[in-house]
């Protein structure tokens, strides 16, 4: 029963997506083209973020650490 509700809910979500983007009025082959293009773009975004976001986050954290370390060094140098 839960599976049936889930299926109906997913069908309703897809219907809302069709209505909101205006794809509802297009012919089925045009809908397929749009869905393909959209899914390709989403896949590319996910892949790019999977490959590059951890590296960028690590580099940013290293830079902030360097900044804090540099400040501490400067303060100890001035006071000492």
């Amino acid at each position: 029963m839960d599976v049936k509700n889930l299926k109906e809910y997913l069908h309703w979500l897809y219907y809302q997506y069709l209505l909101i983007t205006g794809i509802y009025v297009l012919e089925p082959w045009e809908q397929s083209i749009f869905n393909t293009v959209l899914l390709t773009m989403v896949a590319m975004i996910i892949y790019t973020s999977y490959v590059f976001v951890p590296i960028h986050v690590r580099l940013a954290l290293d830079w902030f650490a360097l900044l804090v370390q540099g400040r501490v060094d400067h303060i100890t140098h001035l006071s000492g």
Partner: protein
Amino acid sequence: MARRADVSSKGSQDLHGSGSSRNRLCGSCQENGKSNGVAHSWSKRESFEQAPMYVAVLTYLGFGIVTLFGYFRDFLRAVGLEKCHLAQERDEQKDFVPLYQDFENFYTRNLYMRVRDNWNRPICSLPGPEFDLMERVSDDYNWTFRLTGRTIHNVINMGSYNYLGFAENNEKFLQPVANATKEYGIGVCSTRQEMGNLDIHQELEELVASFLGAESAMTFGMGFATNSMNIPALVSRGCLILSDELNHTSLILGARLSGATIRVFKHNNMQSLEKLLKEAIMGGQPRTHRPWRKILIVVEGIYSMEGSIVRLPEIVALKKKYKAYLYLDEAHSIGAVGATGRGVTQLFGLDPSDVDVLMGTFTKSFGAAGGYIAGKKELVDYLRAHSHSAAYATAMSPPVARQIIRAMKCIMGLDGLTVGIQRVRQLAENTRYFRRRLQELGFIIYGSQDSPVVPLLLYMPGKVGAFSRAMLERKIGVVVVGFPATPITEARARFCVSSAHTRDMLDKVLCSLDELGDYLGLKFSRRKCTQFELDS
């Protein structure tokens, strides 16, 4: 610095002080507690709620995506990969000025055609509170249709202008019309000025004049032509027409045909109208600065796309102050508003002789066809001689005139029954009930609480087609309107409440609207529901 401040404060004081004696309208609006009570209470009864911002963004997104696909399909047609079903130039004419490249044709080809099955549906019965539709399917995505031969019976009619339920085929009520057909025939075969002036027309015009409380009236065979052919007879070059932003096409066409200067004021906005009047009187005609020969303010009683009612008391006050003339088009409001169905003049408690030209149509509340113009006797006599419609258009057909006479006598109670006044009251009750329930359900509807025209906002282009088809599946016939009749972001469904709708029919419609509102996601209203009094 101090002196400049003194001057400015003295100036404003002077304006306010002498303002309240001369500019009585402006003064009374600025002082608290002394304002014109009508304007304040009426503005509370009208609502034009704005949807949340994301709705506008998604509407533009939807239009953008469909436009992109429109360009794509046009490219396929130009390259030859797809056959073009619409009119195209011939090959020899491809180098000429293009005929079909403007936005309107692009919109028709690529947006309207895809959802075209929601309009022009063939009806095969009387357009009463319930009617029959012919089933129609399309095999090639709305380029061509074919009728399957089946009929969809008893579809609830929420789109016909049948406010008082006179679109009926009750034999007893229609007996006078049948007698008129037997006596006069159907065609008049002449214009009013030649041989087409029948005694039934005289009777109808006297009845219309007494119904409206005017001195005299004249009737015409077509409602649209009443506006477009008579405004040119009343004004011409050297006159000024101040027309509301949302006036009907017939008024705009008549104003343009007349050759007068047209200036547009914002919809129902009295400050805009007053500013235009002041500028007109101070500046005069464009180059010569001579005074205008006539200033005519053209407004409608109920605006059918918004459901809003004109602010008549304020306009009459302005017109008296600036000595302009007023032309009131009561196409949707005659018979439908007012305690006894006399229109917006009765709704606001005004004297009909305050309005210079009372115009209306018989199409909406009287179940017939045609229009009238009423006013002072000199005005109507002038129109009898000078109107293009009187000189060139065929006179009104006698059975139609008899139907209007019987409908009007029914409303006035002259036939001895109370059917008419009951229908007027039933319409008012149905209107208030329907509007109150729609607001409680959470939809955005426009317009005044008394207007039987109820626009329900849909906004997104995908939902417009889906809504109309889903309502037809539930056996309810609605009219949806999109661009270009409305602004591009405000597509709507327009309901016309009728006195012939029973409470059951309205409840069925409201139940379906509730379900569809949740399923499609149409409940955009963000206000808490307030309690409206329901006096029966």
